[in-house]
């Protein structure tokens, strides 16, 4: 289930394809391929506009592909594995990627504010999280973002 920036369920125009699916994507199509499959498709000139990477993938490797991408799905293997946060942050701040960055994996609603703060703008909800929790979390995150919490935040905002 795709959850948008506002924490609401949204229609998903993207198709997520596995590494071994025998499909041929079209160049710049709204398909998401895992990194290696994407690179293979790119060899054939058929790389889609979406890619799925892991938090531990080397950002330098992804950086070169950014001009061809509209969506990057970052996979969190565990809710407690925070590498995806740093990866998203680097994609936004170091390489100035302005397409979509989508989180996927066993994420927790209370992580939503952190995801948004690191540059994610949507997520794929794990099936066991009630959808309403994401909306609650998004409202809380928006409230918090609008009001600096600490003196440091206020003075450096």
């Amino acid at each position, binding site marked *: 289930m795709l959850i948008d920036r506002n924490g609401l369920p949204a229609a998903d125009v993207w198709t997520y394809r596995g590494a071994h699916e025998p499909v041929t994507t079209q160049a710049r199509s709204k398909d998401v391929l895992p990194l290696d499959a994407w690179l293979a498709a790119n060899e054939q000139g058929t790389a889609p506009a979406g890619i799925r990477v892991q938090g531990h993938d080397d950002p330098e490797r992804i950086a070169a592909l950014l001009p061809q991408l509209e969506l990057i799905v970052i996979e969190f293997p565990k809710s407690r594995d925070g590498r995806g*946060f*740093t990866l998203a*942050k680097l994609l936004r701040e170091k390489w100035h990627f302005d397409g979509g960055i989508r989180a996927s994996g066993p994420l*927790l609603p209370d992580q939503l504010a*952190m995801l948004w703060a690191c540059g994610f703008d949507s997520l794929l909800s794990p099936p066991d999280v009630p959808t309403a929790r994401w909306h609650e979390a998004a409202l809380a995150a928006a409230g918090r973002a609008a009001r600096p919490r*600490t003196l440091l935040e206020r003075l450096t905002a």
Partner: protein
Amino acid sequence: MNAGNLISANRLHDGLVVWLDKQHNWVDDLAQAHVFDAQELDQAQAAAQAAQAANLIVDPVPRPAQLSDAGPVPVDFREQLRSRGPSVREDLGKQAGQDAVQAALAHAPALTVAPEHAGIYRYDASEREFLKERAKEFGQQVARRLSGELSEDAFKVYRLMNGLYLQLHGYMLRVAIPYGTLSAIQMRQLAYVANRFDKGYGHFTTRQNLQFNWPTLTDSPEILSKLADVDLHAIQTSGNCIRNVTTDQFAGAAKDEVVDPRVYAEILRQWSTDHPEFTYLPRKFKIAITGAPTDRAAVRFHDIGILARTNERGEVGFQIYAGGGLGRTPIVGTLVREWLPEADLLRFVEAILRVYNALGRRDNIYKARIKILIKEMQPAKFIEMIEEEFSRIALTHRPLSDEVVAAIRDRFVVPEFETLPEASSEFSQAYERDIEFRRWVDTCTHEHKVPGYISAVVSLKPAGGIPGDASSSEMLLLAELAERYSFNELRVTHEQNLVLPHVKRDELHALWTRLKEGGLATPNIGLISDAIACPGLDYCALANARSVPVAQRIALRFTEAQQRNIGPVTLNVSGCINACAHHHVAHIGILGVDKAGKENYQITLGGSADENAAVGKILGPGVTYEDVPQVIENILDRYLSLRNEGERFIDTLGRVGAEEFKGALHVD
């Protein structure tokens, strides 16, 4: 021969230790528990799994047991302790019976109105709202856990982020005391929480925190809310995040201080709390900062260690160490930056954290700390990477401006010190006249930067006491004395003592008299009985051996006069390799291990946590629980026979070498 297995677990809502009885009901009295034989065990385990799935209990495990006339007897010492309570507090836990504790608790008055500013650092109103909000959020998370919406695994992330552990006898809440600074009103509220929600005491830790050992899960959100009323919290006291920033207990008071490190510790606290990028690191992350040439914060044994100093132009800057640590792989930190300008503090720390978060190992919990990353990638390469990341973000992130530093500094309540002469005749007369007072002054005070003032250390290590424990009545007395004698201020030391930082020399004797009445004037700071001890197997789920009674028995071995004669020596006792008591960096370190089901203790000599940072070396084979005090006495006897005039234990050891002490391990 074992009769079979108990099925042991903790009850979800209150953490209480429970066992399965014959009918597969959970009972909290071991006598009613059933020992399942091989045929019955599968069914019992299935019942336990079902109870876990039904959110009644957590972590059910089979524990071997024998049968006696009085009922089951667990084979493991750990399970025996779970069935009784701490061996060092027979008045607590199951062994104490139902009424003992409730009857023992006096009721501390609750604060009826939350004070506008409670701490020595004055929070923004929005910060307290945030803390209240977090407490409320945690209440919702607890409700979702109890209803089963959240599994234990998912909930654990939230539970740990709020400092709530599940320990040997139940839940434990670790309250952060940022850089060890407490106000009188905060101390009072801790006493209130200890009485209202716990068992009338708290345990001060080596990371300047406070642990409550008996809260229930259902009470915890309310405890957090009560703490928030006085600007205290338990955020990030657990989990793989940036933990409480620790510092010198005499910060802002010490005569030798160059820079007040609390200002930067507070900046780091604000920056790291709820940090979006660095809350799910490979492993926990500890930062310490000091601003004096004498390192009282053990900065070289932290993930990041910061030495604040000034240059020839009087500007503040920092020397930065990274990758120090204890635990399984004790290692002195690597110097990664000789001089970091004040303005770059957060940008540089961010660069270190980013490199660590991206590259730190996550495949093996024992290799996940930053110290292993630095070792594996080589310090030079690590430094190159953080400097590269630092120069990148230095282009886009704003520096920490003078104005911001000044604004945060202004939020610290500055005591209104009087202009006093350096010498106090009242003090000198008392010092001359009263030998007992003199002995306390000689060990328990520290020079203050303001003439006429002095810092007083309150020992939480009375003979036979539990290192770091303070009862609620002691907390209340100290709150009162802080108001009366120390501008409302208290400090927690990483040696598990407390400090009244700003006492007039004129009033020191009066203060001492009050402390003495309250049993808080043990004159042993820096002496052998001022031992650091982790909770050990008496409380901790990770421990392999007890540590508190080891420290107690050593302390009781020496009279005060003998301790004074031995002079300064540090003794730290850890109950497992995680080294919460920092045994590696003590002059005499003791590590408890499990040797074929028996407690066994390894002795290390020559560690040091200060500016001469060193990791102690193992002296030889481990010794039994019973023999530890004799071995320590042997070591100190050997020292007394070897020492030159005025030579401290650590210096004699350095001169003659550890070989000279090996014989001490023999006990007849």
